[in-house]
């Protein structure tokens, strides 16, 4: 693969990953949100495998396979189980409406290009062209978390934030040391499981997963 092609593939792959995040903003159903996350994780694994092929690094292939297994299959399965329980709780009235959300999402990606200018200018890797999109996904995920009301949507926002960071790491550095990578995976998986337990707990205690009712502790 020529560097130009890798550069274009990086932008293409990153765009698909970012698109997964933006889909969260215009779709409202729980199933659509889970679909967006699954799509994003598969796109991320593919991008990672592509970089691994280019860099000739078998460790990246292993990480991509692990990612596909955990975030492309495992977590979506658990999410589907949650959907059966909370599927009726759609994001009907987020704090920010769809049109404004998409506008803000666009502005956040633009901001990401400005913030990452120094990164892109110092790197010599052909994959660096996708880095602004990765930071863009980080910003969009943060926006999802603060502008949506259902606990499940917030969990998805958090998972997407992690995807954004993984994308940033693979594009900018062609993979962080494997021991750190595995630890991060463990943390994400454990964190997700605990969050999932809490979502069930919120539902049991408050009879809905709308976080707007979590307003007792205030003064």
């Amino acid at each position: 693969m020529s560097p130009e092609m890798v550069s274009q593939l990086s932008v293409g792959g990153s765009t698909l990953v970012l698109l997964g995040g933006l889909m969260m903003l215009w779709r409202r159903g729980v199933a659509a949100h889970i679909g967006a996350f699954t799509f994003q994780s598969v796109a991320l694994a593919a991008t990672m495998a592509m970089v691994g092929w280019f860099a000739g690094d078998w460790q990246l292939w292993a990480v991509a396979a692990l990612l596909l297994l955990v975030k492309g299959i495992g977590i979506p399965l658990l999410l589907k189980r949650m959907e059966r329980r909370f599927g009726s709780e759609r994001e009907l009235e987020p704090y920010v409406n769809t049109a404004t959300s998409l506008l803000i999402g666009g502005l956040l990606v633009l901001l990401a290009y400005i913030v990452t200018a120094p990164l892109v200018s110092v790197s010599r890797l052909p994959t660096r062209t996708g880095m602004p999109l990765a930071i863009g996904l980080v910003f969009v995920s943060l926006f999802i978390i603060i502008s949506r009301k259902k606990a499940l949507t917030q969990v998805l926002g958090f998972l997407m934030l992690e995807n954004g960071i993984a994308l940033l790491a693979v594009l900018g550095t062609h993979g962080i040391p494997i021991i750190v990578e595995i630890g991060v995976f463990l943390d994400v998986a454990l964190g997700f499981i605990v969050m999932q337990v809490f979502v069930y707990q919120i539902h049991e205690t408050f009879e809905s997963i709308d976080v707007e009712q979590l307003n007792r502790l205030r003064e």
Partner: protein
Amino acid sequence: MTVTSAPFLALLLPPLVAALLALVLPPRRFLAGVAHAALALVSLGAALGLIHLVLDGETPTWGPTDLFRVDALSALLALCVAFVTALAALLGPGPGRDQHYTPAQIRRFRVFASLFAFTMLVAVTANNVGVMWIAIEATTIVSAVIVPLTVSKASVEASWKYILIGSVGIALAFVGTVLGYFDFVTLVGPRESALNWTVLLANARVLHPPVIELAFVFILIGYGTKAGLAPMHTWLPDAHSEAPSALSAMMSGVLLAVALYAIIRWKAVVASVVGPVFPNRLLIGLGLLSLAIAALSLVIQRQYKRLLAYSSIEHTGLMCMGLALGPLGVFASMLHLVNHTVAKSMMFFLSGRILDRYGTPEIGSVSGLLRVMPWTGGLFAAGMLALLGLPPFGMFLSEFTLLRAGFADGLGGLMAVVLVFLAVAFVSLLGHLNRMLYGAAPAEMRVGEGSRWDVLPLAGCVAALIVLGIAVPAPMTALLHRIVEIAGR
């Protein structure tokens, strides 16, 4: 450099063994409690041993590519973590206490509190910034599990805010870590040890300032969220007040310090890349904001555990500012950290005793504390005076030194503002304390101390605070001077 595994194993293994034992032993057995406490004391002994090694001029390392490394800063933090863990093992949920926890709850608490201690100890002894990040992220997960030990609407709400805000914050710290690694790899090439402090510091001069500045902003927001720095502090008063008291003690007493530790490590790297002005400005800004918000929030609090939580934000803010005030400021900040660890963990244990007896978290419903529980009330008063920075307690000395460092740095105006906020905190805390100590005890309140042996270690904490206030022990001073060499650049 010595390569020895013994002190590391003695420090890190006991909490893991304790978690396993708690899982299999019946929690109501006396022996289970003894084993739990004994293991925590082994860890504490190991931390003291590490301090001894460090004072002898050694820097113990362990593991492939020096995965673990203990210098003076790590040793001090390890001591703080092991100290509070031991207190929590001695005084935490168990049989024979006023608190009524079911065996299942006692087991859950012991398992996860031990894992919590383990993750914090790994965080402060890891040489690799990636491993440190993994450990700090794990602290959120394992501690969040036991925040709602007793399920109620308030505790579920608090745990949700804690895990969501904590995880998101720490994820941002990882963005910063990746950016730091990115810059290193871009310049030096990929290397397994590139995420080690020692390697990052050694190569600091060639790193790109704009990239590292961006990385530090992410790191400060990320770890700052865990440290409870404003404006990312919103989860803290909820989680610290709704958690079981022994967990509150661990979270307020040392978790905040562990997060601050991560900031100190990165600050040293950033300061050698771009100079001290940039990180110092950010640290002073966030520290002052935390101090201001905490001081003003203290005035309107109605619950005593929330009062203590806001006081933690106040003191973390002070420590954060101290880090930016030159070598003397770093010295004061670290001394303050030790004082705060002792004072705040003690106060949360005492507030747990008060909560058990009065059955209410409201300040307004607690009165006549000195008459109802003379020892608990007396120690609570002493602890509060210590937190206010009054002599003869240690915080008087550390706050005074911190202010002196600020004036010496030519930041007199800023220090005046700090004094104003300290005065606000002083007046409001004293008012709240008065309301609790005196007055008539509620009718039919049982008088006298319950589980009276528990008072002993807490009285020991007050004694330690007085010692730290009259004359800082020579080994502690030596340790702090070494920390200044590491972090005071």
